[in-house]
């Protein structure tokens, strides 16, 4: 069964600094998607970034980028120039061929002014 592990329950960063959130996963599939979702206090889940496993190039979206290491089954999220609005819970998710969507337990990010 696929599993997703986020080893950092909480992280903090100073405004304008860079922070990296860790995510590892376990799967025997070769084709799948990985996602990072942000959940602010409003609870609405917001897609941050998506990576297709067959693409070797790391995905980027403005200040957000990933370090995708397929062999190591690692999918970390880097947030550059952190802003107060980045404070939220961040969830790593796996979506594979079985169509099952599996989430990690989340990392609570605090941004200090």
């Amino acid at each position: 069964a696929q599993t997703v592990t986020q080893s950092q329950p909480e992280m903090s960063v100073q405004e304008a600094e860079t922070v990296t959130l860790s995510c590892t996963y376990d799967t025997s599939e070769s084709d799948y998607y990985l996602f990072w979702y942000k959940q602010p206090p409003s609870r609405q889940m917001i897609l941050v970034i998506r990576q297709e496993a067959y693409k070797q190039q790391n995905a980027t979206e403005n200040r957000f980028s990933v370090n995708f290491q397929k062999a190591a089954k690692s999918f970390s999220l880097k947030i550059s120039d952190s802003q107060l609005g980045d404070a939220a819970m961040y969830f790593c998710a796996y979506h594979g061929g079985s169509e099952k969507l599996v989430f990690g337990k989340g990392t609570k990010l605090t941004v200090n002014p």
Partner: protein
Amino acid sequence: DVKVTQSSRYLVKRTGEKVFLECVQDMDHENMFWYRQDPGLGLRLIYFSYDVKMKEKGDIPEGYSVSREKKERFSLILESASTNQTSMYLCASSPDLFSRSGNTIYFGEGSWLTVV
């Protein structure tokens, strides 16, 4: 814009009551999911459905059932609510994983259920 709508944002039910949580999506997505979210436990998959009348158990199906009679609607049913089912319930939908480009999961706003 894709919309996933959960019919009830806040519910208070008594122990033993039958509870229905409804979720509707308007983008003709094949897959629909029900999760519950609890502090420190993340999002745990209860059930998902990849087609009409098809369902698969997730990680915590005990005490729950689901119904998908139409493609756009996925219902979560608590046959006899218990206090340990007090939680936030999130519905999500997605297209088939590899059937189209730009695969993305879409979420509802969540339903807060309190069982007293």
